[in-house]
């Protein structure tokens, strides 16, 4: 056992993962790349064999050369409406393919259909976010090999640096042509940006587009060009539109959450970053959307025009673009109908890849240009370390998403959430799992006020100097922790076994923490 720099014991060897000595987390920007990047197999398509069209998933699997033991990737822009993962795994099972490593950008509840295939050994390993039922299976020890969790940027880095080699990338394509050009902008299964799939398309040995909307060559505009797509397979439906995009995402109406959003907005307005050209990311949660709404008002009142809005894009960001409060949107994932319509029609709404969004090992990701990000977490500790992966009982239920990347990139990283979720305090002495280190978290905003990381005295001073103290109530982290503890009482330890079921990588590929198997009964 060796401690990394966030004081987590990491065994020197983890079964199914390897030796860890060279891979201990040692600081947010410490590990730097060496050498050259990795790509996929070089292929050639001649004028005589330009047709890439296949009739279905099974034919595509056969044509791709997919064999037992290989690694296949998926992207999650169809979210909880995705039919592709289940169809591909089912077809692999029918073809007798086993021992697969699946490398999705994220899995959702709809993918619970693959659980029997995990149990039968069709899937041997998962590298990627596991939300919901598959996370629960992993937590209870349902997989022999630990899951590897990476951020969006960390995943792109892992592919481009050769940590992970993709044998076959399966890309759900809301529109594709017979030459393999694909886009997410139109079609009955339109999802807007397909940014997470770019990196896979560029680095896999074989790329299969699956579509329910085949068009003549070429479509326009193109997101991923056919030059890196081997096959196009037609399927009946790639997804359920109701699960792909939500209707209009809404601001919270809960007064407690509105108060938190108000404090967070005031903190931003008081910071040095609230000026013309401010770039920010707020995501789609109830509190972050409310922060966006409050910031919008403040921007209007103070005649401030922002730069770009980043990340998962919602209708709120689209409105700000239309009203001239933002100049550009950089979209790796379109959350709602308004965002899908906007990216299809407005050239200022830019589709970006996971690499462009968040990779720490390229010549400058978009997150590096962020002034402010609003994030959530299941818990935070008095060192400001954030846990977004495990729940209070220790079970793995959430992926990292862009949490690490945006926190590291933004000049002001704010975690905004209620102090208590029921009896469970959100501020604890030590988080169960460190996802994002406290060194890149600047403030926690709760209904009790604003708690600023002591490593940001400039922010503390800015709040103290600002007029209107009631709107900027500062609470020291230890005082807030004591308050939470007084309400909740002492927590009993998480009931868990030694066995490691998940590894949380920091975006640079070092291990920031491990997740252990939970015991269900006391």
């Amino acid at each position, binding site marked *: 056992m060796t401690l990394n720099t966030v004081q987590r014991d990491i065994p020197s060897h983890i079964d199914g993962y390897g030796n860890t000595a060279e891979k201990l987390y040692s600081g947010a920007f410490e590990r730097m790349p060496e050498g050259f990047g990795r790509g996929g197999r070089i292929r050639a398509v001649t004028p005589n064999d330009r047709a890439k069209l296949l009739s279905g998933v099974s034919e595509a699997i056969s044509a791709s050369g997919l064999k037992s033991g290989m690694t296949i990737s998926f992207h999650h822009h169809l979210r909880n409406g995705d039919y592709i993962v289940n169809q591909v795994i089912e077809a692999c099972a029918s073809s007798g393919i086993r021992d697969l490593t699946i490398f999705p950008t994220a899995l959702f509840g709809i993918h619970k259909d693959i659980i029997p295939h995990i149990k039968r050994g069709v899937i041997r390993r998962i590298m990627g976010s596991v939300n919901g039922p598959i996370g629960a299976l992993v937590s209870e020890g349902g997989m022999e090999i630990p899951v590897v969790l990476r951020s969006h940027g960390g995943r792109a880095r892992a592919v481009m640096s050769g940590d992970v080699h993709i044998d076959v990338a399966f890309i759900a394509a809301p529109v594709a042509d017979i030459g393999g050009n694909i886009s997410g902008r139109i079609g009955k299964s339109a999802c807007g940006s397909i940014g997470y799939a770019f990196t896979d398309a560029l680095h896999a040995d074989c790329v299969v587009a699956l579509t329910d909307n085949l068009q003549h060559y070429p479509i326009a505009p193109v997101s991923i060009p056919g030059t890196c797509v081997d096959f196009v397979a037609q399927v009946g439906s790639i997804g359920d539109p109701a699960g792909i995009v939500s209707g209009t995402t809404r601001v919270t109406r809960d007064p407690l959450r509105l108060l938190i959003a108000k404090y967070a907005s005031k903190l931003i307005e008081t910071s040095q970053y609230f000026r013309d050209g401010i770039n920010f990311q707020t995501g789609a949660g109830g509190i972050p959307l409310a922060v966006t709404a409050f910031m919008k008002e403040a921007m209007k009142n103070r005649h401030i025009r922002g730069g770009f809005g980043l990340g998962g894009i919602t209708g709120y960001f689209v409105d700000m673009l239309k009203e001239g409060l933002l100049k550009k949107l950089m979209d790796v994932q379109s959350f709602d109908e308004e965002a899908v319509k906007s990216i299809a029609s407005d050239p200022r709404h830019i589709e970006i890849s996971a690499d462009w969004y968040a990779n720490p090992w390229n010549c400058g990701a978009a997150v590096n240009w962020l002034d402010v990000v609003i994030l959530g977490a299941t818990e935070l500790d008095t060192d400001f370390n954030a846990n977004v992966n495990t*729940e*209070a*009982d*220790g079970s793995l239920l959430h992926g990292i998403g862009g949490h690490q990347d945006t926190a590291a990139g933004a000049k002001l990283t704010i975690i905004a959430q209620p102090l*208590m*979720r*029921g*009896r*469970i305090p959100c501020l604890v002495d030590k988080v169960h799992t460190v996802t994002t280190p406290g060194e890149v978290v600047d403030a926690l905003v709760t209904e009790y006020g604003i708690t600023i990381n002591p490593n940001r005295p400039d922010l503390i001073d800015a709040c103290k100097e600002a007029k209107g103290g009631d709107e900027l109530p500062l609470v020291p982290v230890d005082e807030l922790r004591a308050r939470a503890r007084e*309400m*909740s*009482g*002492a*927590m*009993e330890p*998480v*009931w868990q076994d030694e066995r490691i079921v998940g590894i949380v990588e920091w975006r640079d590929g070092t291990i920031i923490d491990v997740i252990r198997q939970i015991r269900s009964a*006391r």
Partner: protein
Amino acid sequence: MTIRDNARTAQAGTLESMDCLVTVTESTGERQIEISGAAVSRFAGAMTKKVNQVLDELEGKTEAKSVVVSVQDNGALDIVLGARVEAAYLRLVGGGAS
């Protein structure tokens, strides 16, 4: 909840966030406490202790009845849990504690 005459069982509370639904049932055996909900993983001991403490006090003041207590918790703090147990128990025994 007005089950008083010939009471076999009584309830107090709700399943709203930060509340709990407590059901007490008269029994002839030992006191039993069952607790379910998200907070159980980290607060089972504290919750059980609180339920026992409230029941011990009430049994001292009223005509003691052995009960089975079921708590469906949705994040109640101890002070809420205690109040719900007290209300449910008094509904079962027909009030009388002052």
